């Protein structure tokens, strides 16, 4: 994981915008904000948490095995590396 100093903002379209807290995955952060995201494995192999990334960049701390599209991310095993905008379904 990169050790960046900046604070990144996470904008969840239709929900709210909040600051990313550095410990934990993006999914952990969404859960802390009480935003419901479907999940199963939390290890990147099932794809249940597949989410649209509208803007920004993320990086993976576990090699994601599940299938997801080019404009999608797996919040269970990634962290933002810039401000991001996502759409949860």
């Amino acid at each position, binding site marked *: 994981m990169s050790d960046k100093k900046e604070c990144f903002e996470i904008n969840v379209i239709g929900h709210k915008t909040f600051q990313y807290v550095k410990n934990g995955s993006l999914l952990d952060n969404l859960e802390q904000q009480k935003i*419901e995201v*479907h*999940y*199963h*494995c*939390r*290890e990147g*192999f*099932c*794809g*249940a948490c*597949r989410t649209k990334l509208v803007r920004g960049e993320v990086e993976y701390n576990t*090699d994601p*095995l*599940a*299938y*997801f599209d080019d404009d999608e991310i797996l919040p269970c095993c990634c962290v933002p590396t810039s401000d991001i905008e996502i759409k949860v*379904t």
Partner: protein
Amino acid sequence: MKYTTFSQTNNDHLAEPMFFGNPVNVARYDQQKHVIFEKLIEKQISFFWRPEEVDVSKDRLDFQALTDSEKHIFISNLKYQTLLDSIQGRSPNIAFLPIISLPELETWVETWSFFETIHSRSYTHILRNLFTNPGEIFDDIVVNDEIKRRAGDISKYYDDLIFLTQLWQTQGEGKHVVGGIEYTVTTRELKKKLYLCMNSVNALEAIRFYVSFACTFAFAERELMEGNSKIIRLIARDENIHLTSTQHILNLWAKGKDDPEMAEIAEELKDEATAIFMQAVEQEKQWASYLFDQGSMIGLNKEILCQYVEYIANHRMSAIGLGQPFEVTSNPLPWMNNYLNSDNVQVAPQESEISSYLVGQIDAEVSADDLGDFEL
């Protein structure tokens, strides 16, 4: 094309499609066309477990205390899962191996099927503990109409592909009459059968297990049948990885990243693929009705189970580009997620902290910063 167990054609396997290219010759994994299958093999093997590792002895007492309608729910689900894994323990091998052209995909299918056989053996482990004579339960699987109806729908696509492949391998392309019926064998027709079969398998792995999983975990929420629940969690974790593989195959085809003809077929048969999925959803809802026809169980009823099937179907259909046909937007059974989380899966003591242990895996990267607050 006649099948050979070791093709002596000196082909570049990196240039082969997943299916219907040259048969695989050397089982080599130093280079891969689709590296994802090699990664799935490693992940799946790291999940290895044995049914005997899970103590199910307390379940016998729990089972005896269940109401008759709850017993019906529990046993019917085990029968249905036994059917599903009976099919999945053999069919991917028989249907796909003869037509696969990539070593990593061939080994993935073998690994996948092998794990389904572990699941099958675990049902015997569970039933042997509950009944002095589990034979009656197994005997009913081939006579129970509700189960037979589902078996027919699932095995049909496999059987069609297997039969046409056999004709192709023994007689080649062309028109062949077998048992008074004329069959047209072309590569295109074979690929269509393969595409439909893969969609049927994908729907099976995606939703067919989930009504039964939900009932199992609903018992576990009441601290009942917990040994069984531990086994089903392990099975659910495996099924999730199997689903990932069929989603990759379907998307590799649809996005033209493998065989260009399969991309055309995916487009051409999109409605049929959707119908296969919708039919599976419908059958699962009917299964929920059958389960609850003798009375319900605490924490679960037919309506909520049907909503859960729709919710899961939305997710799984959108993953293969079939949209989200159902209106349900929030998870009607949120506690299910806890049981499907792989960190909550425990098997042997050596795995009590992390479920997927990879032997010999060492993080060899140590930076100076890691020793920053170390003083002599």
